[in-house]
């Protein structure tokens, strides 16, 4: 539990009070969710690295009004998973975290090819799973048939 409490304390110090939300019931599979502004993302991820966490998953959510990146981080202790979330516009580029966690090298490549999110300063953004010449971004809600394309507030509001 030590790493988890230490990290939560550090992130609470970094981000404003209303951006963090703790849930000890582990209902959504995370003990702690934090909404970071784009500019503080790398700082928050660095804190996780310093506390012995590993980067479990990076994925994006596509909403009508915004993109949302969801980083799940975990450490080798019971029920310690946290999520870091960052909102940014469809025309913006988030910074890479691949120099902090090597596993982001591939995970960001995957997010890039499926959502068209170009991570700045990423050394190698070739498609990972799609063909080399893929000029489409399949997991965008504008691609193919989709059931719903919501504004973010319709789900999380």
């Amino acid at each position, binding site marked *: 539990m030590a790493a988890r409490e230490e990290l939560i304390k550090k992130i609470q110090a970094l981000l404003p009070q209303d951006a963090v939300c703790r849930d000890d019931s582990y209902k*959504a599979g995370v003990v702690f969710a934090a909404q970071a502004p784009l500019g503080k993302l790398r700082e928050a991820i660095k804190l996780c690295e310093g506390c012995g966490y*590993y980067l479990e998953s990076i*994925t994006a959510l596509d909403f009508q009004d915004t993109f949302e990146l969801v980083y799940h981080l975990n450490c080798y202790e*019971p029920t310690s998973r946290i999520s870091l979330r960052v909102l940014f516009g469809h025309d913006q580029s988030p910074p890479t975290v691949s120099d902090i966690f*090597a596993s982001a090298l591939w995970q960001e490549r995957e997010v890039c090819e499926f959502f068209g999110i170009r991570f700045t300063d990423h050394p190698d953004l070739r498609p990972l*799973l799609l063909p080399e010449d893929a000029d489409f971004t399949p997991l965008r809600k504008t691609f*193919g*048939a989709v059931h719903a394309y919501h504004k973010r507030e319709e789900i999380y509001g």
Partner: protein
Amino acid sequence: MAEHFPEPVVEQIYTLNLGPQHPSTHGVLRVLLDLDGEFIIKADPVIGYGHRGHEKMAENRTYKQFMPNSSRMDYLSGLLYNHGFVLAVEKLAGVQVPERAKYIRVICSELNRISSHLLWFGTYVMDLGGFTPFLYAFDDRENILDILDRVTGSRLTYSYCRFGGVTRDIDAEFIAMTRKFIARLRSRWDDYHNLVTKNVIFIHRTRGVGIIDAQLARQFGVVGPNLRACGVAFDARKSEPYEVYDRFDFEVPTGVKGDALDRYNVRLQEMEQSCRIIEQALDQLPSGPHINEMAPFKVRPPKGEVYLAFESARGLTGYYLVSDGSPYPYRCHIRVPSFGNLHVLTEVLKGTLVADAISILGSIDVVIPEIDR
């Protein structure tokens, strides 16, 4: 081998394509190897040949329609994936599961884990040139497939779980077959150890080969037996117990060095631990219904999200579901263990011999279609 690695002479770099159809790549994997003589100076895995777009498919199907897809990602531990998906949806939608169903799921999942490890054992030793153990392992695995076939109706791509239970109850015959199988498997350990574990060629091919230390594992998000082989006792069944795993007494086997031999030993010990879990589950098996008849036919989880982690045969796997309140998931992301386990090879293969590359690739037990999704 890394200490003998000389500085590469740039003019002599030779690029070798390992795969996409190499027998040791376990799925369609291509690895671009830059060689200096017999030493690898750069390895670049090329994946995606088996990409089917499961995450996009999920968005166009109801939760129930997507369920059969779940076992087609990692086809060697399909039941575990099926189980995990059902757990995630149940957690999101608040569906109640009868006690008996929970035990049945655990029993079948652990059987599936053993069958996956047995297949790995057989193919790994075959990669290293030993054909006989492969036949032994497949003989044992066939017993599991028969047991699971009897209750689930399929041999590989199971879709046995339902939201609120399992599709078919187990009977006395199933229990007898399972107990008989466990006794049989235990009587085979001696054969396995005599054939492989004590084999001097096998030891030379694996000891000190492909070392993944704890720091490297954390950097690349390595999980499962590969992580436990370097001494980190991390198992989702212990760290965030799902289903009824907190009621069983079992250990998390770990290694010391994190080399291929440790990974081999960890997996062999894990099979024994799975046997222990199955035995306890059979002893504790409660009576009652095997499915919650009141579970909704069309699942409509409330708005929100869930991240459910479970331990597949290859490590911690996670389903990340976002619901907009409709019967269709708004987003379904699957965090697969082989992703990090394969990615770490770009670092581990540097400075090793080509022959060791096959040994290392086999020892980390990747299933490519799970990465490709």
